[in-house]
Each structure stands twice: as structure tokens, then as C-alpha cells.
């Protein structure tokens, strides 16, 4: 008998930012728990809204599975008494004994339980094991004790199995499961009796709770777009903001509000950031992307005039603050802010931001670079960045523009923090790319130089992100100056600059930085570009560390990634492996490695290899010549005694195999690093 199990943990508001992950964690956690009770089941689904986390198990078997547990007893050589004792204590007879590896065993049939009787324990386990990022305890009046940990206090638990409520008391939260839930806290707060999931979902929908998280998000996106389109405006898609507002309402109501005209003189980035961060409002634009004096907002109950007034008033207060900061900031030039960077700490052991600027200057070449470096961090002292740290760089660029700095410089300041992560775009101007490059290398050299290292998921100084930024600039920038040679030179220069400032760095800092970058480069190729680890290891080792050429290595990795999927790669791999074996077996005695060129191969197989190797081109476009040569190599290995008693023949053979290996290594990579791949992969 297979039946549906429905569980709803009704709690006080679950933080919006935790909901998406909770959906997945709940399924994984509860599936594991059911399995641990040995009950077969169908799909496990989860649902979430601010006040509830719901689990649905389809086709949950009514009983635990029949199973046996094998128990190990005494050794065969043990006395009769021991064996009898073992049998007696397990209620078995001598017929049940099984001999394995010199020991007696018996199989014990596990007791079969009714699933219904296990549900309470399953929920208790779920409460104990659900991995909330942050959780709390509360006081249980009936037990005079603290509850188990949960994200917020649980106030009611609905549980229905096979259409009825098991009604079990859950000690860890002091609650007896019941057959009712509650609707929207403000619109339909009454208790709702529920029979099964379909009924539950429908009744909640009627009670203004939208249970399907993705549906709620889509609904918000669509309604917002529709409402905006009604007045000729567009809404920029913002997944993060959608997640947040969806997680804050049980049922979404959409409203378009008005921004006072006086605030429209603020930079658009400031407007939209203030609305998003402080108020969770959506920015609306005209079709040409110019920001419009309207915002979109999602509320939890239907709108009213007083509510709309309130929403506008809060925004006015927020934007008044922003306007005040903006006005105050513009009274001071970026140049005047810059000297105060000596009061801003970069790192307590590495000095101030102004010292950082000085070090970056030691690399600056052109007049433009000097000016960009001098001004790029000045916005850290503005009130606007104080209020919205995420606008660092952006604000500097905006203020630079108002001060009539060159367009190139404004853009460079704006984008010198880019790329902010593995998927962000890189700076689009050469000046921006160079400032970003120098800034990031300076940070990496200093922080690694004083022994800071990321551990596990902890990377408080974002060293990994910084390194990925450098790697991506090396690989993707159009600016040919950003290459491995420059990198090496910058690292050396910055180490010297730190030392000139009297900051002691570890003696091996240069190598540490280079190794760290290569590690991140590998991780970037594996995680970001989905290149297999063996290929990454092969290409990186092929170029020799620590001064490898990032761009060439990356190209190579992409190429190898393609080649290993081609027909015939298995043959090439095999031929390469056997050739390497042949060369290794015969120690290099210093004889002429080029002797295959002038040698006469009498054996027809070796002559075949010779022809095929001669036919190998330098061109990468075609792979078939390598496959052909590989087949010839394999054929020879099967039929020819490579290690010929005649020294001259032997040397010619080996030299020919070596040539084959060299060509393959140059054109693909060292295939000894490459694992075998399943056919057709």
C-alpha cells in the first residue's frame, strides 16, 4: 500500500535569502531520512513560503522493507558453548549458521514496522538534520526547556498520511502534529482543515498563499512587466531581487509607484541601488533604457492609498539622504579626497590605501595611468560609497565625469574592480583593464606575502576572486601588454615596492603568488570552462611553471578538450602510451636522436610508421594524420621487435617512436596525463 505523506512546518517568517536553498536541502535531507528507515517511496517534493516549509512524499510504502541483517558470531574454532550461546541469544538454531572466512554468521530478519508509527521520528530527524545556515532555539512552555534548532520558532505542524493525521507529539519542538494549517497571516488567518496535498494546495491558494516558489517568481516578473508596459515602461530582469521579494510575501501584489521629479537628477545607479538595497523596489526604464520616474514594488496584501503614500514617503526619505550625500560629495573633488586615503586601512599589516596607490604608481607608465591610479580609490571616502559600498568605482566614475575628466579615465575608474567574479565581464577599456590588473596583483602580493591564505569555504580577503580576476584579464583582455612576462615583472616590482615601504613580506612571495595564480587558473578552467582535470594538468605541466603563458595554455586546453572527443583518440592515446613505454625501456644513450631521418626501415611495419610520421603535418586543423600514424605505431608494436639486436636498427626504431611522441605532444599535449575516455563520449 503506497500513500502520500504531507508535512508542513509552519513557523515565523523564514528569511527570504535562505528559502531557495532550503527547497533543495529539504528534499535531500528528508529523502535520506526515509531511506534510513528502510521505507520505499516515490518522489519527494518541497515547497516554501515565508511562513511554511512543506514536504510531500509520493507513494510512501505502508511498511518498512523486508530485510536481513548479517551478524558475525564466534570463530569456527571456538568452543561449542560459545556457538550455542550465540544461537540462543539470537533465537536461532544450528541450521541457521553460515560459515564465512572462518567465522560463524547468522541472518536476522529485521522487524517490519508500520510506516505510520515512524513518521514522528522522521519529522524529529528532519528538524535535527535540516541544514539551515543560521538557526535558533526558543523556549517550550510545556517542557520548561529550550527547543531544537530551527530557522525561526515553529508554531504548528501539519502532517497527513494516507488521508489521516497521525497526531504525534514532537518533543524537540513541543508540538503535536495536526490536520490544519493557516492561510495568509493578514488576509485569511483562520485555521484550514486539510485532507491531502491537492486539497492543501487549493485551500492555501484560496487563502492567498502561493505555494510554488518558482510560480510566484514568474508571476511577479510577468505582472510587473505587464503593469510597467501599461505605462510604456520596461523592467530590467533581476533574479536576485525577484528571489528576495518572492521570499518576503505569501502572495504577491504588484504596484507601480512614483519617484519625485526632484530626485531624477541623481545618477541612475544611485537611484536604482538605493531603491533595490533599502526598499527592494524594482527600477523601471523607458524603452531606450533611460531610467523613468517610477518604481515597481511587491506587497503582501492588496494595495491601499495610505500604503501607496507610505511607500512613496519612505522612498522620499531614502532619496533625500542620497541627494544630501551626493550634494556634499560634489563639494569636494576626487583629487581633494585622495590624500585622505592615508586614513583608510587597506590591511593593518600592509598599511593604508594611500600606500597602495603609491605602490601601484611604481608600475604606472603613461600620464593616463598615473591619473587613473591617483583617483581610482578616492570614492571610498565619499558619503555615497559609505552608504552603498557596492557602488565603489561606479561613484568614482560618475564624479570624475562631473569633474570633466577624460571619458577614458571615467570609464577606467568605473570598471577597475571588474571582473568582480568568474562570470562578470572584464573591463572594456585598455586603461581600465590595466588599472584592474595592477590593483589586483598588488592585493595578491601583499596578502599572500603576509601569509594570508583561503581555507575551505573561508576566504575573507577574496584572494581567490582576485586571482581569478587576474587570470581572466590575462586570458581574455585584448590588451597584449597583459601577458605572463608583464605579470612576472609587476609581481617583482610590487614586492620591491612593499619592501621600500618597510612592509616585510615572506621571502618566497613571488613564487607563492605565481603558484596561487596557476592553481586558480586550473580551477577556473575546470569549474568555469568545464575542462576535465586531466587535460588541465596535462596542458599546464606542458608549458612549464611558474611562468606559463596563460592565453596559449587556455587555447591548448580548449583544443585538447575537443580532440579527446574525436573518433580515433583512443588509438592515439594507446599508441602514445606504448611509444613512451618503448622509449623508456631503452635508455637514451646519447646517440643521434634524429637518426630515423636517414635510416632505412626494412621491416614493412616500421616502414609504415616511417611514412606516417613523415606525413605528419604541423597544421592543427586535421587530426586524421595523427590517427593514421598511431595505427601504424600500434601495428608495429604488435609485430616488430623494437629492441632489435642490431644496435643501429634499434636506435633508428627508438628515434622514430620518439619523433612520433614529440609531434603528438606538440600538437596535442603530453597524453600520459590524459585518462582514457569512454567510446563516444
Amino acid at each position, binding site marked *: 500500500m503506497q500513500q502520500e505523506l504531507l508535512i508542513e512546518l509552519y513557523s*515565523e*517568517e523564514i*528569511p*527570504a*535569502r535562505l528559502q531557495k536553498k532550503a527547497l533543495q536541502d529539504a528534499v535531500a535531507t528528508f529523502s535520506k531520512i526515509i531511506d534510513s528507515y528502510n521505507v520505499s517511496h516515490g518522489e519527494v517534493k518541497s515547497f516554501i513560503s*515565508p511562513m511554511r516549509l512543506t514536504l510531500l512524499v509520493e507513494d510512501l510504502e505502508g511498511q518498512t522493507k523486508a530485510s536481513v541483517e548479517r551478524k558475525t558470531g564466534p570463530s569456527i574454532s571456538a568452543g561449542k558453548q560459545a556457538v550455542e550461546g550465540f544461537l540462543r541469544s539470537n533465537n536461532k538454531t544450528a541450521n541457521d549458521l553460515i560459515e564465512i572466512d572462518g567465522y560463524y554468521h547468522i541472518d536476522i530478519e529485521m522487524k517490519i514496522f508500520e510506516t505510520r508509527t515512524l513518521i514522528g521520528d522522521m519529522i524529529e530527524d528532519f528538524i535535527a538534520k535540516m541544514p539551515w545556515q*543560521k*538557526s*535558533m*532555539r*526558543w*523556549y517550550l*512552555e510545556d517542557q520548561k526547556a*529550550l527547543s531544537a534548532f530551527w530557522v*525561526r*520558532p515553529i*508554531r504548528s505542524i501539519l502532517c497527513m498520511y494516507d488521508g489521516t493525521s497521525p497526531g504525534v507529539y514532537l518533543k524537540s519542538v513541543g508540538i503535536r502534529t495536526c490536520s490544519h494549517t493557516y492561510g495568509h497571516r*493578514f488576509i485569511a488567518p483562520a485555521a484550514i482543515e486539510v485532507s491531502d496535498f491537492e486539497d492543501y494546495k487549493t485551500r492555501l491558494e484560496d487563502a492567498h498563499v502561493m505555494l510554488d516558489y518558482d510560480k510566484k517568481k514568474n508571476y511577479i516578473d510577468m505582472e510587473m512587466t505587464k503593469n510597467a508596459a501599461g505605462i510604456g515602461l520596461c523592467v530590467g530582469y533581476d533574479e536576485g531581487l525577484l528571489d528576495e521579494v518572492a521570499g*518576503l*510575501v505569501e502572495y504577491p501584489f504588484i504596484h507601480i509607484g512614483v519617484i519625485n521629479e526632484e530626485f531624477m537628477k541623481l545618477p541612475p545607479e544611485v537611484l536604482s541601488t538605493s531603491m533595490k538595497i533599502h*526598499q*527592494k*523596489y524594482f527600477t523601471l526604464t523607458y524603452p531606450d533604457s533611460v531610467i523613468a520616474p517610477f518604481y515597481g*514594488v511587491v*506587497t*503582501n*496584501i492588496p*494595495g*491601499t492609498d*495610505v*500604503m501607496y*503614500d*507610505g*511607500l512613496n*514617503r*519612505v*522612498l*522620499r*526619505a531614502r532619496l*533625500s*539622504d542620497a541627494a*544630501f550625500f551626493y550634494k556634499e560629495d560634489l563639494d569636494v573633488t576626487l583629487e581633494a579626497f585622495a590624500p585622505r586615503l592615508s*586614513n583608510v*586601512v587597506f590591511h*593593518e599589516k600592509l598599511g593604508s590605501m594611500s600606500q597602495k596607490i603609491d605602490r601601484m604608481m611604481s608600475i604606472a607608465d603613461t600620464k593616463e595611468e598615473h591619473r587613473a591610479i591617483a583617483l581610482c580609490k578616492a570614492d571610498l571616502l565619499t558619503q555615497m560609497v559609505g552608504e552603498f559600498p557596492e557602488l565603489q568605482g561606479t561613484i568614482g566614475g560618475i564624479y570624475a565625469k562631473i569633474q570633466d575628466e577624460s571619458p577614458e579615465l571615467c570609464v577606467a575608474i568605473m570598471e577597475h574592480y571588474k571582473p568582480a567574479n568568474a562570470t562578470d565581464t572584464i573591463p572594456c577599456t585598455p586603461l581600465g583593464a590595466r588599472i584592474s590588473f595592477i590593483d589586483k596583483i598588488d592585493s595578491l602580493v601583499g596578502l599572500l606575502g603576509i601569509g594570508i591564505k583561503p581555507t575551505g569555504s573561508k576566504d575573507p580577503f577574496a584572494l581567490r576572486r582576485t586571482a581569478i580576476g587576474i587570470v581572466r584579464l590575462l586570458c581574455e583582455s585584448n590588451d597584449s601588454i597583459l601577458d605572463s612576462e608583464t605579470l612576472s615583472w609587476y609581481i617583482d616590482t610590487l614586492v620591491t615596492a612593499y619592501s621600500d615601504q618597510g612592509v616585510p613580506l615572506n621571502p618566497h612571495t613571488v613564487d607563492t603568488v605565481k603558484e596561487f595564480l596557476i592553481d586558480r587558473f586550473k580551477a577556473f578552467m575546470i569549474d568555469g570552462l568545464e575542462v576535465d582535470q586531466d587535460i588541465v594538468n596535462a596542458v599546464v605541466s606542458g608549458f612549464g611553471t611558474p611562468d606559463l603563458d596563460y592565453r596559449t595554455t587556455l587555447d591548448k586546453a580548449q583544443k585538447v578538450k575537443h580532440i579527446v572527443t574525436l573518433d580515433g583518440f583512443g588509438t592515439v592515446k594507446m599508441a602514445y602510451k606504448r611509444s613512451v613505454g618503448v622509449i623508456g625501456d631503452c635508455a637514451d644513450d646519447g646517440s643521434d636522436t634524429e637518426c630515423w631521418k636517414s635510416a632505412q626501415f626494412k621491416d614493412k611495419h616500421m616502414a609504415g610508421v616511417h611514412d606516417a610520421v613523415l606525413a605528419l603535418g604541423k597544421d592543427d586543423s586535421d587530426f586524421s594524420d595523427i590517427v593514421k600514424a598511431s595505427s601504424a605505431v600500434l601495428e608495429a608494436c604488435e609485430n616488430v621487435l623494437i629492441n632489435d639486436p642490431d644496435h643501429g636498427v634499434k636506435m633508428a626504431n627508438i628515434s622514430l617512436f620518439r619523433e612520433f611522441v614529440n609531434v603528438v605532444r606538440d600538437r596535442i599535449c603530453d597524453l600520459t596525463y590524459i585518462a582514457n575516455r569512454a567510446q563516444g563520449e
Partner: protein
Amino acid sequence: MQVAVSFQDIIFKLQQFWAEQGCAVLQPYDTEVGAGTSHYATTLKALDNNYWAAAFVQPCRRPSDGRYGDNPNRTQYYYQFQVIIKPAPQNPQELYLDSLKAVGFDMAAHDIRFVEDDWENPSLGAAGLGWEVWCDGMEITQYTYFQQVGGINCAIVPVEITYGLERIATFMQGVESHFDINWNGKEGEQKLTYGDVLLRFEKEFSCYNFDVASVDILLEHFSDYEEECRRLLAHNLVMPAYEQCVKANHCFNLLDARGVVSVTERAGYIARIRALAKSCCQAWMESL
């Protein structure tokens, strides 16, 4: 439209409401604190295992937030209405929402939301989980389940509800500036506004906090309070010691506003205050 409720009416109604829930209605702590949480009625009383329920107005001093009375919403002195109940009852959110109704909020007309905001006060070694409560997008209350005070885990979890009285008043009266809040509910000549009561206070204290307070005297006071706190703890006088700790904290806030505390020193000061607070909390627990 909302019926205009005076500033003092809001206080009366909240006092009345929470008195009916069994809270002792207390008076403010008569020394400078940065938040209602610093009142011994919260900090120390939250710590032990006895029943406790109190509600009170607490004037708060945040010297760095002063704007010489120029900013309509930001001041260095403002009022909180603080509720602390231990153990937290089984329906604290419902009680809170009922208190808003009691003050005159129309719950069908306003969008009330509990938005995650975990609270932490490093100088008191206190932390909790909860929300800021939004009304039509404006934060009007901080709602917290304490988990730790003075670095000690709470054996019985209290709930702390902190209303921002000025925000609620501007909201209910439909005014944009704190200084325009009608304090006594009268109109015409007899009308007294928040500005009438506090604008001069705000201006003069902003000058004192930012420009005039003697750094030397403050530094001396800080050390004195710190020393006195330790001395009193040695005499096992926990409440007087705690008061010295609170005073030291305010001294630090003033020094901070005077702009004489560098980033590195800042961490040092906070650590010293936390050490005092922690010692007081431990002494309180040991003396029970």
C-alpha cells in the same frame, strides 16, 4: 486616513497594552545608553532563569548620528519603546501585531512585513535572531529572540521588541520630519511639537558631540569608569559595576563622534567594553 495620534498617546497606548500582558511598566534608565537593550532591565534581567516582563521608554544617545537638527530623520537622541519578556510567550508575533492595532494601525491598509535582521551588539557580547518589522517599506520595530548576552548563551530565550517611536509617529501622523511630530496632541497655540521639545537639544548636543567635547576629559573618564567597574566587581556590586560599564560605553561613543578613534583603536575600545560587560554578566550569573 489615519486618525492623528499624538506622540505621547502612542507611548500611553503601548504602556497600557503591554501592562495588560503582564509587563511591569518601568521608567527609563537614568544614565546615557545607546539603546534600550543597555538598560539593566534588558541586559542583566534577560540573563538569569527567572520570569521577567518589562516595558519602558528609553531615550537613546548615539552621538555620531547627530546632524545639528538639519536632517529630518536622523538625530543623536531619540526614543525607543522597549519590551522584554522572558521566556518569550508562545505567540509573541501576534501580541506585537495586536499592539500595533492598539496604537491605531489599520492592519488591512498597511503592508506589515517581518524582514530578516539578525541583531548583534558586539560591545555587550549579545546576539539574537529576528527581524526588522516593515510598515509600507519603513522599519518601525526591531524584533529579536535573544540567544546570547554577555557572551553567555541564554538558558531561557527572551523576546525583545524595540519600537522606533519617532518612526511610528511620523508614520501615523503623516509628517515627513521628526521635528514636526505633534507631541501633546493639541492644535493651535497649545500644540507642542517634537521640535519644540528637542530641536535646541539636538543642535547643542551635536556641537558638543562633534566639536566641543573635551577629548582629554573623555579619555580620563573612560579610564576612570573602566577602573571603577572592575573595582566594584571586586566588591561584588554587579549593578553599580554594570552602570560604570554603560558609562564607559557612552564615553567611547563620544570619543568616536569627536573623530579621535582610529580604526585600530576602535577595535581595542570595543574589546575593553565587551570585557567589562562580560565580567558584569558573569558576576550577575554567579551571584544568583
